């Protein structure tokens, strides 16, 4: 333990992922091969990109439940526009603009109207999905125009044998890491998450920072949406109503980013994503039934949280009020 220092949730989750990896590698033929490992990372890279977006918001003591809906609707709209003849780049620019607008609205409602983030974004998710279904397109599934090769590469291409989504995941993670670490806005974001009132008193422009945080998450979400659409050549708007958003939150919190804000970094989101990826991949190889997979996944997640709590017990005296 001396070498590892204080066992944080991040380390526990990482250790758990490694143990699982080791177990699968020993027991499952075909798990520990380069192609499977690449496939493993590729299969969770979209989840990982969304996790990075969510991590930024959660570090700023927010939560963005509209992330999936925004990404689905914006990308589906872009595809719809492209299908009706608009150049792909222009269509994507419209989609991006839509995302920025939704992020701005989220931030405004949270920072200025002071609606709790969980409700503002929950309502925004519902409203965005409804808006898309009602005004932008009539079918839930929008297919990608066949001639959009450049975009298709983002989801299906490879470079040096590594699938493109992994590059996207790595790129987004790296940018987010640098942003949090080296830019003034990134540090402000963390200070806002750590203690909003203190940040405001010391002169941090807290409200603009909150606006920015939701706009960034929307934009990263749009990127994740592009990768999704490209990799399956279509966008199913119904994923806004799926439990994907729960998985995204799980990845973030599992990696050790507290919902009370200010804690953790991009690394934590990556670790959480990897654990989920290893689990899913191993269980698919074993051909475990889908429902049983969910039980196993849930129990392992629960184990990770329980171990963390046992090693770092939360005390009545130190716990933060309202930290659920």
């Amino acid at each position, binding site marked *: 333990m001396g070498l590892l220092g204080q066992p944080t949730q991040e380390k526990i989750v990482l250790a758990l992922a490694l143990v699982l990896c080791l177990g699968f590698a020993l027991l499952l033929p075909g798990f520990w091969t380069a192609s499977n490992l690449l496939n493993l990372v590729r299969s969770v890279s979209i989840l990982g990109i969304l996790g990075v977006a969510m991590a930024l918001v959660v570090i700023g003591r927010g939560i963005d439940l509209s992330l999936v809906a925004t990404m689905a609707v914006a990308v589906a709209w872009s595809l719809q526009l492209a299908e009706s003849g608009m150049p792909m780049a222009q269509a994507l620019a419209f989609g991006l603009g839509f995302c920025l607008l939704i992020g701005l609205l989220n931030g405004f*409602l949270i920072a200025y*109207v*002071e*609606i*709790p983030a*969980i*409700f*503002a974004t*929950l*309502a*925004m*998710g*519902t*409203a*965005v*999905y*409804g*808006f*898309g*279904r*009602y*005004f932008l397109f009539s079918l839930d599934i929008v297919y990608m125009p066949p001639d959009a090769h450049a975009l298709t590469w983002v989801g299906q291409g490879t470079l040096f044998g590594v699938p493109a989504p992994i590059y996207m995941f790595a790129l987004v993670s790296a940018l987010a890491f640098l942003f949090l670490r080296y830019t003034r806005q990134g540090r402000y974001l963390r200070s806002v998450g750590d203690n909003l009132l203190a940040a405001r008193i010391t002169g941090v422009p807290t409200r603009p920072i909150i606006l920015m945080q939701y706009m960034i998450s929307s934009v990263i979400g749009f990127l994740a949406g592009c990768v999704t659409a490209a990799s399956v050549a279509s966008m199913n708007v119904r994923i806004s*109503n799926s*439990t994907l958003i*729960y998985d995204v*939150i*799980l990845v973030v*919190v*599992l990696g050790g980013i*507290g*919902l009370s804000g200010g804690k953790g970094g991009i690394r934590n989101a990556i670790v959480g994503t990897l654990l989920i990826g290893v689990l899913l991949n191993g269980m698919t190889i074993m051909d475990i039934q*889908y*429902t*049983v*997979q*969910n*039980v196993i*996944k*849930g*129990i392992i*997640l*629960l184990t990770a*949280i*329980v171990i963390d*709590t*046992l090693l770092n*017990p*939360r*005390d*009545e*005296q130190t*716990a933060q*009020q*309202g*930290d*659920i």
Partner: protein
Amino acid sequence: MALTDTLTRWRYRLVPDHLVGEVLSKRWIDNAIPLLILLAVVCAFSFAMPDFFGPSSISDLTRQWGEFSLLVLALMIVMVAGGIDLSIGSTFALGNIVALALIAVAGWPMWAVVLGTLACGAAVGLVNGLLVGYLRLRAFLTTLVTLIIVRAVVDMLLLNYSVAIASTFIDSDSWYYPGEGSVFGVPFSVVLTIILAIIIHLVFSRSRIGWQVLATGGSRRSAHNVGIPVRRVVCATYVVSGVLAALSGLLFASRLGGAGADTGVGLEIMALTAAVLGGNSLGGGRGSAAKAIIGSITAMIMVNGLIRMGVPAGANSLMLGLVLFTAVAIDVRWIKNLHKVVSKVYVSPAYASLPKPPGTDSYSPYAVNDKLAPVTLIGLGEIDGPEDIILDDDDNIYTGNRTGDVIRFFAPDYKQHEVYAHVGGRPLGLAFDKNGDLLVCIGGMGLYRVTKDREIEKLTDETNRSWLSVIDDSRLRLADDLDVALDGRVFFSEATVRYEMHEWPVDGLESRGNGRIICYDPSSKSTHTVLRNLKFPNGICMAHDGQSFFFAETWACTVSRYWFDGPKKGTVETVIPDLPGYPDNINRASDGTFWLALVGIRTPSLDLALKMPGFRRRMARRIAPDEWLYPNINTGCIVRFDATGTILDVMWDRGGENHPMITSMREHKGYLYIGGILNNRIGKLKLKSADKSWTGLASYWGQS
């Protein structure tokens, strides 16, 4: 001029401005916005669809509402304790499938099915409770994971049993009763939910465990530090929530008899929406059964109405989202600004026109002099705020202290003192009853008795509630002075029902009749209000006829006499209509006249301001309380008057050195003892022409 005055007077007499602040400071006003949203939704839908609230529609709607509302109640209980339970949707589905499997596949009798289903719900709740309550896991994350696990378990049960369930016809009337039966025409689920809601309301508002839950949600740390078993309380909320969710699932199963893959999917979000629409706050401390019910009705009507209108799914979600925005935004702003608004509008000055004050120059009966100069001081610096003073047969002095004690100074030199009794609140008026027990008015607490054995007993802390008062005036906020009639009845004044002890000068700004005189009858141990709408009634002193007492109204600058017995029973006569200052305590003098303390002297500016309520209201709203124009209580005097109201004597302390202010005085064996609520001393003045053997006790109760 006179006309505008009259108009102003009627304007302030007829329009009850003070009600605004009182209504806004009620606890139930918290529900106003959720209720308004509910009304708006009801109006909108009954306008859009005239038959939406028709009998058949209502019956279907309410049945579904019963089930949904149970879930909202479940979530509310957890939220109030500071947690969140996202697993209720899955637990609902579990309750549904378990109930169906038990009745259709296992063939259990109905009572066993109910017990089995509820036990399943309790088990899920217990897992949540152990993890969140005892292990201190984060509620959001933990219940998110149990949501996934329970949902997967439900799916597994579905795969195994759904075909068997679908192919079995359940032949049991008792099975269909919860879902389809009615009690006096009201669907069973609604009756059940309302009963449960009432029970939950009673538990939260009136039971120890309910208060412990609220305290835990309000501040878990403080709750822990005062010894509440926080972990057990939190765990219990999850168990209850699990049971309620399973019960809801059972009702659903009995109504539809179907186990679908998506049963209960997303219900947690719906329930959360409803809970928030009702005004329950995330993070705990604020929530009630009523809020849960209001929220669930609103959400139910909205979702159902939109589906029934045949709105396309997109528009449906869009509207739902927008309504959620609006509702939460309004609620958030409301909560945030409510106390600001209350603090601005609570002070509501009324019109008061005081008669022209008599002067204090040398022609006046109130002419300024220095008669209080020779006063000697008792307990200088050792006592803080002796509002009232009383002496017993052994000449010991009793007085109240700001620290919540009754202090006794020992005769004859009054150098020594002790805490006679620790009463815990600010002792104001003092009196001895026939048995020699000390009766004390304690600000914020009520009327208490300290027996000779120093036992402290509460006599009364409430009176009859007046029906039309918005403020709950049954509690005694500021019992001030008292006196005892020959038959033992205690008459005491409550200065104001609108302000707490420490805000008493603000009441002067209002100059409305906020005070009252209350009678406590020891023979029946009953309390009732005798006179109301008095302007800060203060001193009370029995007249010598045994049928009436004098009382002072501080902000009205009058002394009046009230007959509680005899031929003039029930009448009030003003004895002194135009005091130059603000009267406080009244006590008997040895020659059959009365002593009266004036706590402060009127100023022309405030007298003028009293005729300008609008001016005072603007003052209260716009500038800080420190800067307000208050009644002057820096200089006072002692007045002696007789039963007809004639002023016989006035004693001043011109320099204000010994007695910056005077709130009471008590004559005893030729000396006058003087107290003041802001003083740090008791004064003792030798009276020249007084009866050297006269004591107050003897005057009341005869030679003992």
